[in-house]
């Protein structure tokens, strides 16, 4: 059953058509790769789907409780609460907050105590906060950041910051996770760790994952299906082996053969 359905999506910035007529259909439980040369519109597609930009036209539908819901004009926070979480290409952690608080922020929409409990610090407050603490620590242990829970996010090494972004995205308990260049700037060993981490969270949490990546070995290894964007158009989609041989893809990356 399809989880996300993007139909004929356009997004213009002035005269520039960043996305022109993109169609994407993602099934539940898939691990999708989204590739394309720089400026192809990959991040723009993420931004439109997650509501940071509004689409110029077209529709985005998400499966929520067995119903397809049109999310193309919803606000970013509402879309997150419906089940889409993401990481950012240029890391956007809450730098001056502790590692564990970064994770707790993302759990906020599930925390239900009112202002009265906040001000009076009732038993309910302590109970829920303790519960949140346990859950946040569990998520940090998934990405091996447990012993750095109290450090400030900005003091983490680069690779750990990327992992923390993933943990934070998971904390909002999404059904669909977008990873925007998760391996950017990582060395081969870190990339290998990341690959197994992505596999692990996908299986353990029963997630559907879409990732943008330039590291082709990671994409070909990990992804079950690949979409290729170029100049805002989806030029190919299929299994990794098909994509490797696709003429349009080769042309987009390497130019025309003479």
């Amino acid at each position, binding site marked *: 059953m399809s989880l996300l359905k993007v139909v004929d999506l356009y997004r213009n910035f002035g005269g520039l058509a960043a996305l022109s007529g993109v169609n994407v259909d993602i099934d539940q439980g898939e691990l999708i790769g989204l590739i394309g040369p720089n400026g192809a519109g990959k991040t723009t597609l993420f931004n439109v789907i*997650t*509501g*940071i930009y509004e689409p110029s036209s077209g529709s985005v539908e998400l499966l929520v409780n067995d119903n397809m819901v049109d999310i193309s004009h919803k*606000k*970013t*926070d*509402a879309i*997150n*609460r419906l089940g889409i*979480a*993401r990481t*950012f290409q240029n890391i*956007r*952690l*809450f*730098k*001056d*907050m502790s590692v564990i*608080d970064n994770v*707790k*922020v*993302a759990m*906020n*929409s599930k*925390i239900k*105590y009112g*202002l009265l409990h*906040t*001000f*009076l*610090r*009732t*038993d309910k*407050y*302590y*109970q829920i*906060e303790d519960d*949140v603490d346990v859950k946040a620590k569990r998520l940090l242990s998934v990405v091996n950041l447990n012993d750095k829970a109290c450090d400030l996010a900005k003091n983490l090494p680069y690779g750990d910051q990327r992992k923390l972004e993933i943990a*934070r*995205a998971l*904390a*909002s308990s999404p059904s669909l996770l977008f990873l925007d260049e998760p391996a950017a700037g990582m060395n081969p060993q870190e990339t290998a760790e990341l690959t197994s981490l992505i596999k692990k969270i996908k299986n353990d949490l029963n997630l559907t994952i879409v990732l943008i990546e330039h590291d082709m070995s990671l994409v070909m290894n990990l992804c079950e299906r690949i979409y290729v964007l170029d100049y805002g158009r989806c030029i190919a989609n299929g299994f990794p082996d098909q994509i490797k041989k696709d003429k349009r893809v080769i042309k987009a990356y390497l130019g025309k053969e003479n």
Partner: protein
Amino acid sequence: MKKVLNIKNMIWALFIVVIYVVITFLIHIKIINAYYQITLLLICINIILAVSLNLIIGVAGQFSLGHAGFMCIGAYASALITKSIANLGGLILGVLVGMMISAIVALIVALPTLRLKGDYLAIATLGFAEIIRIIVLNLQITNRAAGIANIPKLINWNIIYLGVIIAVIMVTNFKRSASGRACISIKEDEIASEAMGINTTKYKTRAFVIGAILASLAGSFYANTFYVIKPETFGFAKSIDILVIVVFGGMGSITGSIIAAIALGIINTLLQGFSTIRMIVYAITIVAIMVFRPKGLLGSKELTIDKFRSIFKRGADHESA
């Protein structure tokens, strides 16, 4: 109600009681005389103002310059009510009415302006505070430019201390809750915060309204402490005064704001004797703090019991070694 009675909270409670007893004693044996009592009350009012503005600016990251406006609402509300009901009941009614009006006004101001960022928000809130001042300046009921005089002095050390404790506990508990984390995340990175499911408008408005309510409380206390209020008391300069305390103590640090309000209050009083150079020294002090501690006295950190404990422990280790 068992969990709230944990050790840390008990230590803070003890600390609150000790401060109360010490100052009450000092007032009783007249070391804090009538003149210093005025300073004491003013410091307390400034603590409430600074802590509440810090909630808006330091915690939620919304640069508001309209704090004097809410203070003005509280001051006039309780001044008008206590002039006809000159007892504690009147004061409570005045405080509550002021808070209600402030909350409603804050909501009305928040919805359009909190979409703005940084400088634009500052200018919008500044404009709003001026609107309040001009309204008060032109209304018959607020006695126009002459202001209101002979307001009954209902505020004493006990009441104001209670007010400070309530304000500080409200803001601290807010900061250390899910709402507080949401607000801090908005200050840190609004786009990421939205992408994590935080309804940023809701939390910004929450912080703004709570800040406004507490500013109104401080305004009510001000009116019933100083007998006289005039529209110009609550002008632009007042908002800046409060901002100075917040910046001095450190954006986002509640304990910093408290320490800064006390320190600036004491410096001001000590300089009363040198009226000619008073403002110069005051300004130099602030400039010096900004040069040597650009993030304010405490930065965004808080003084906590854990921190005292670790300092104490380090000291003990040092002695034994």
